[in-house]
């Protein structure tokens, strides 16, 4: 059974990746989520990418069981099963009267959206901008910064991973501010391999490569721009939010309080990112 880690801080989702390593394919083919009471965007993306990875390895879909009604409703609302119909399914009963509202004005989320081509990134960013305008009102500079976050992060996933990525966004109303949480993930080549292909060996660990990417190292042929992660970090942290980057066996968490790095994580391909952006409320 998956522990209740999908709605916690991104580092807690390591239990999900650890689960991959501790089980046989037969056991992995059924994931019991009875212990899951909450899912954040990063948790949803991590779960989605685990399902994609499992399918890549064994050409089988993962069966999610034990879904609590709110969790099942949430996954349906973010189009988790629709987008992932080739890699995941559930046979849990569900009454459509429990479905969550999809109207734009009351929407707290952007559904899981694929990002594998420029026009998809553009479309996701534009939709997110419309939703953000509903969430945050006309705090234009904040919306502009989040739009930049989304476009930069998505283009990294497409340009550097060699894989298609997914993104989902969720809004949370806190007492004095609104939080926008973004989860973006892919199961491509990861930051280390992406930078090694362009620069050779420039760091001793995965964390080292993530930090190089944050410092501006780029895998792009014309050396332009770095992976954009530095800019993403600046925008998120300056807002009072944070940035979490996990790639292969390393992770880096950055907030205004500082940076926490972790090495020797359970190996999982690609890059998974959580971005939290805070916008002060104008009540």
């Amino acid at each position, binding site marked *: 059974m998956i522990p209740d880690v999908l709605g916690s801080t991104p580092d807690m989702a390591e239990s999900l990746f650890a689960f991959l390593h501790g089980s046989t394919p037969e056991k992995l083919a059924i994931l019991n989520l009875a212990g899951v009471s909450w899912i954040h965007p990063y948790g949803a993306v991590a779960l989605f990418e685990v399902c994609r990875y499992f399918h890549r390895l064994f050409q089988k879909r993962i069966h999610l069981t034990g879904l609590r009604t709110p969790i099942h409703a949430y996954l349906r609302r973010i189009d988790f099963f629709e987008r992932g119909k080739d890699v995941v399914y559930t046979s849990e009963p569900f009454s459509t009267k429990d479905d969550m509202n999809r109207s734009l004005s009351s929407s707290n989320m952007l559904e899981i959206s694929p990002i594998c081509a*420029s*026009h998809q*990134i*553009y479309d996701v*960013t*534009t939709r997110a*901008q419309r939703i953000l305008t509903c969430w945050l009102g006309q705090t*234009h*500079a904040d*919306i*502009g*910064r989040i*739009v*930049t976050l989304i*476009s*930069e992060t998505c*283009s990294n996933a497409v*340009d550097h991973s060699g894989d298609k990525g997914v993104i989902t966004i969720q809004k949370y109303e806190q007492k004095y501010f609104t939080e926008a949480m973004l989860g973006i993930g892919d199961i491509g080549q990861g930051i280390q391999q992406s930078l090694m292909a362009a620069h050779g060996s420039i760091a001793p660990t995965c964390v080292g490569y993530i930090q190089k990417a944050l410092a*501006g190292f780029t895998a*792009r042929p014309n050396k*332009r*721009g*770095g992976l*954009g992660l*530095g*800019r993403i970090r*600046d925008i998120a942290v300056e807002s009072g939010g944070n940035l979490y980057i996990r790639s292969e066996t390393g992770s880096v968490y950055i907030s205004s309080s500082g940076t926490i790095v972790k090495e020797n994580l359970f190996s999982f391909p690609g890059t998974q990112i959580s971005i939290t952006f805070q916008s002060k409320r104008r009540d």
Partner: protein
Amino acid sequence: MKRFEMTSLFAKLQIPGPNLLLRNYGQSAFPILEQALEEVPPGQILALIFAGISVMDTSFAEETVIELASRLIQESYGDRLVLLDQPTPATIDNIEGGIARLKAKLALLIREGAKMRVIGHIEPNLIETWHLVSERGELTARMLADALELEINTASTRLHKLYKARLLLRREEITSEGRQHIYALPL
């Protein structure tokens, strides 16, 4: 002054707007902007009109306006200037972020409301000089030297650097005292 509506890029790039995003769209937009600049008569300005543009992200900016500015100071386009007219705060942030990320020693003219200012990388003594030109409308090296109590050579160098950085226009005047350069902001 020639005007180029940035919103005209939407149709050319086949994107719906209101944003200008992503590196590859920027790469497609660059030749369009470059052509617009090359059609400007020497000694004049291309004003990129940002009305209707909500956000230009850093990647698009790097491939377009920052690249344009870089080639301008390399004198790829002769005696021409570029002005960014009414970009949004997010767009300005992204352009400045792009210049900083590239560690590029270049600056751009922008107009916000009725006021013009410089963004990007510029030395403090040059921005001081630029502001003085902005206040006075136009300056010669002698006028600058007198205003800031500088040696005439220092004043001349500062104005020349701003001209080379494509942040000031320059015209030559022949007076009874000889030939002199007059530096001014684009109107």
